[in-house]
């Protein structure tokens, strides 16, 4: 469902992605790992054109996000994204954060949108926080609302950009739990993460990036226990 061809991205003189080739079928859960600066976040952000690739193509369900003739706003509706810093809308309540896009973009009826939002809040375990403002929530709660907000557009794929990196350690579990449930429901997920335990347990596939290249692409049982590449090995030794 996602095809990345010959993708490169250069910031100034600095090549961040150097020819990425990637195919992700429906319902696969893919974790991107690698040290900071390896290009994993940039790769993720190229998938929904938050970063414009320098060259190459990114096809989401056959639609090329790089093609200016494609309606990028329409494609993005099918691609949910969760950010490291949550990025909830602080001037809106939890419920309004979730219903804003369905109401304004999909022209969904307000009552229906709120019904959907409450259902999603229940799913992430926060139904009692519907009328709270984001500032009154903990980081873990905010991130769970952000996941619900993305799910409200009924996306076909979810992108996670280090979803637990800004969280206090005791809140990481609740967010990973929500993501785990999502994976078990068959959601296609691409996750940039440093949570190796999570990657090992939930991912169907782990990609190790270094200097803008996918150095290793394997099932977690393979990649974590028996890495083929020396640099993957060095990286894992350092963090595990």
């Amino acid at each position, binding site marked *: 469902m996602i095809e990345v061809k010959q993708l490169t991205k250069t910031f100034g003189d600095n090549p961040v992605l150097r020819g990425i080739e990637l195919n992700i079928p429906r319902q696969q859960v893919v974790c991107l790992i690698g040290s900071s600066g390896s290009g994993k976040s940039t790769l993720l952000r190229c998938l929904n054109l938050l970063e414009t690739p320098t060259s190459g193509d990114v096809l989401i369900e056959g639609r090329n996000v790089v093609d200016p003739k494609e309606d990028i706003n329409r494609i993005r*509706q099918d691609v949910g994204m969760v*950010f490291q810093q949550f990025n909830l809308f602080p001037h809106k309540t939890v419920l309004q954060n979730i219903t804003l*896009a369905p109401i304004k973009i999909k022209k969904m009826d307000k009552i229906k949108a709120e019904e959907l939002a409450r259902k999603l809040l229940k799913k992430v375990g926060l139904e009692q926080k519907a009328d709270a403002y984001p500032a009154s929530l903990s980081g873990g709660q905010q991130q769970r609302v952000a996941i619900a*907000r993305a799910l409200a*557009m009924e996306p076909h794929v979810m992108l996670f950009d280090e979803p637990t990196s800004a969280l206090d350690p005791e809140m990481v579990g609740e967010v990973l739990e929500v993501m785990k449930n999502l994976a078990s429901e068959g959601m296609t997920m691409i996750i940039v993460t440093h949570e190796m335990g999570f990657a090992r347990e939930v991912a169907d596939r782990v990609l190790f990036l270094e200097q803008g290249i996918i150095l290793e692409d394997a099932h977690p049982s393979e990649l974590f226990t028996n890495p083929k590449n020396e640099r993957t090995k060095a990286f894992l030794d350092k963090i595990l």
Partner: protein
Amino acid sequence: MEGFRMALDDMPLLLKGAWVTIEVAILSIIFATILGLIFGLFRVSQSRILQGIAKTYISIIRGTPLYVQIIFFVYALIPLIRDEPFPEVVSGVIVLSVNAGAYLCEVFRAGIESIDKGQREAGRAIGFTHSQTLRYIILPQAIKRMIPTFMNQFIITFKDTSLLAVIAVAELTYTAQTIYAINYQALAYLAVIGVMYWIMITFLTYIANLLERKLI
């Protein structure tokens, strides 16, 4: 003390002038807000041309004195484009609006740019267009932050109305001038209108502080 008695006797006239001051200031800030919002959006738009238009406008207005702008508009620009002059009040409101609009434009730009870029990304990532993101996500947050600076500009524009005396707008300063030109009681009349300005500005400042505390 004779002069002050005369000034107090003329209070109905002076109050009429003060009322014109208030009207001109309010109308000007309303139009300035519209101009400021339009050009502020130009300023943060993705089009180089629109950015250029906004930058030129701001540069001209900020780079020249208001007094020169007023006499340039009334004695140079208007005769160039039409035979009949505008009524003085209309000219006054136009110049003050265009002037304050340029400053508010920068206030809007700064307000919009002060919002974390993650907000824009969250909006775009979920499928909102550039303008929907501005409208539903960025502006509601930015406007709240702009209110103190906006009120500050209103107070400046309120005081700037006195410069319109030079083109015979019948506001408070001009009213006082026309009277003391006849009875020579400049000290008393200028002191009295000074106090009147001070009362009005102090009241506005009070409102501004109230808004600031309520909203932030």
